[in-house]
């Protein structure tokens, strides 16, 4: 009987102590964790919004379900831009991204937040190109470049069909003329070998994003 009692007591005690220690750590870190979450959001917002706007968080009802949509407005003078999150099914995962558009639906910035596509293929929607080689870059500061894939969405209108050009090569390799020609077509380039992931995003823009923007604008 003593044995049994000992088992109970030891296991319970260890559990309690462990829980206590964890809870203690949590208490010490939870503010920072929360802040980290906001920071990421904030950084993304800053990236996709035009410079110099004042940001505010809002909610809008969605007509389809009794859900609400969280969005952010950025006000600069008389212009207002709207930022919100979109999620669409890509090749092997759901791609979560955030866009910011003008009231007319012209994208001022796009950032992919989360995805689990194939590395080297679909995952390149988040690719940040680094030109730096290891031997001349180890000590230096980290580059802060936006993903080229997101970059090309600037100026694209979600209210018109978005073209995917697979023939021109990838956007980061294009010269100014090529980029302009794309813009004129309201088009973007695909990631080679990942048309599905690319199309997932453009589809999301011309379907979900469009409805969200409508919902926001009332």
């Amino acid at each position, binding site marked *: 009987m003593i044995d*049994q*009692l000992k*088992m109970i*007591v030891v*296991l*319970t005690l260890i*559990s309690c102590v462990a829980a*206590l220690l964890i809870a203690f750590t*949590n*208490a010490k870190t939870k503010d920072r964790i929360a802040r980290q979450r906001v920071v990421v959001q904030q950084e993304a917002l800053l990236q996709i919004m035009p410079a110099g706007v004042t940001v505010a968080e809002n909610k809008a009802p969605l007509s389809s379900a009794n859900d609400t949509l969280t969005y952010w407005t950025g006000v600069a003078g008389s212009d207002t831009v709207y930022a919100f999150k979109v999620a669409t099914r890509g090749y092997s995962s759901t791609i979560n991204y955030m866009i910011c558009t003008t009231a007319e639906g012209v994208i001022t910035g796009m950032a992919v937040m989360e995805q689990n596509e194939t590395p080297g293929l679909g995952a390149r929607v988040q690719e940040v190109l680094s030109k730096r080689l290891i031997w001349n870059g180890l000590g230096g500061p980290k580059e802060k470049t936006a993903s080229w894939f997101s970059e090309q969405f600037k100026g694209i209108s979600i209210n018109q069909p978005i073209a995917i050009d697979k023939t021109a090569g990838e956007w980061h390799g294009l010269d100014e003329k090529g980029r302009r020609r794309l813009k004129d077509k309201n088009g973007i380039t695909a990631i080679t070998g990942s048309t599905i992931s690319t199309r997932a995003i453009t589809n999301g823009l011309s379907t979900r994003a469009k409805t969200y923007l409508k919902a926001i604008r009332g």
Partner: protein
Amino acid sequence: MPIELLYPVIVVGSVGLFFGVGLAIASKKLQVYVNPRIAQILGLLPGANCGACGYPGCSGFAKAVAEGKTEASGSVCVPGGSKIAHAIADILGITADAVEPMMAVVHCNGGSDKALERSRYEGITDCHAAILIGNGSKICQDGCLGLGSCVRVCPFNAIHVTKEGVAVVDADKCTGCGKCVKVCPRKIISLIPKVHKIFLACSNHDRGAKVKKYCSVGCTACSLCVKATPSGAIIMENNLPVLDYAKEENFIPAAYKCPSRCFTDLVKTRSKANIDTKCNGCTACVAVCPVPGVISGEKDQRHVIDKDKCIGCGICLNACPLHAISMWGVGPLVKTTAGKR
């Protein structure tokens, strides 16, 4: 205690309590008898439950070991390594008792340079396989087939087949486990006490005249070895001498006398006898020495031994009433063979 610390403690604590109680009750109510050895062995195992042994977890392996279904050698339990193997052996009580150390010997020396073949065997490299088609390719029906069934079965890498095609045991590596003895289809491997170092390297039962035709190291059943061993430790059975290692340990003269060089002495150079100044020339040694002409000297004079001819059998040692003879040299002293090391 603030509430944000309390909840966790209550939740985790109660889960702990729940299972504590559960396991406590279970350990009482659901007790099943297990072989205590299993628990003991389990205690020795690394407990990584990695499954590398091929058993479901450490307990499965422990069970198998305790039931003798597998060996606990280091290669089976990778994380445990060879260290635990010994510890487990202790539990199972399979540590070797102090027995006479034995070694395997191959009773054949008829390589392709010495024994003739009647055909060219081309088939599976395995002695049983050779036996199955035409009883092997040697003319000698008892000779080593040289296809190495024994080599493959030896866990200690102690046998190899020479390039002439006979199996040879490495005395240093052989542990006397006897696996090769069992496997040899010709039944020409046997265990001898390790101290002996002399054995008959032929298994042929044919009559001498016949043997001579096809093997230059074949036993012709001339019986000289029998005569050279007056104790009767060698008898001739079915045209082949049989050595009784229990009876007599000195087979050196027999080995020396064999005209066909059928005996193998694992000691390459034996120590030689030497007669010191105590010798009074009684000639007792001359009478017993199996090799004529080794010991010379006038009667009542100190005798001398021709070191080149002495075979180191040590028989003269016992014959000398004055203990004037001793063995000199590198080889093991013959006398020590009687005792256990």
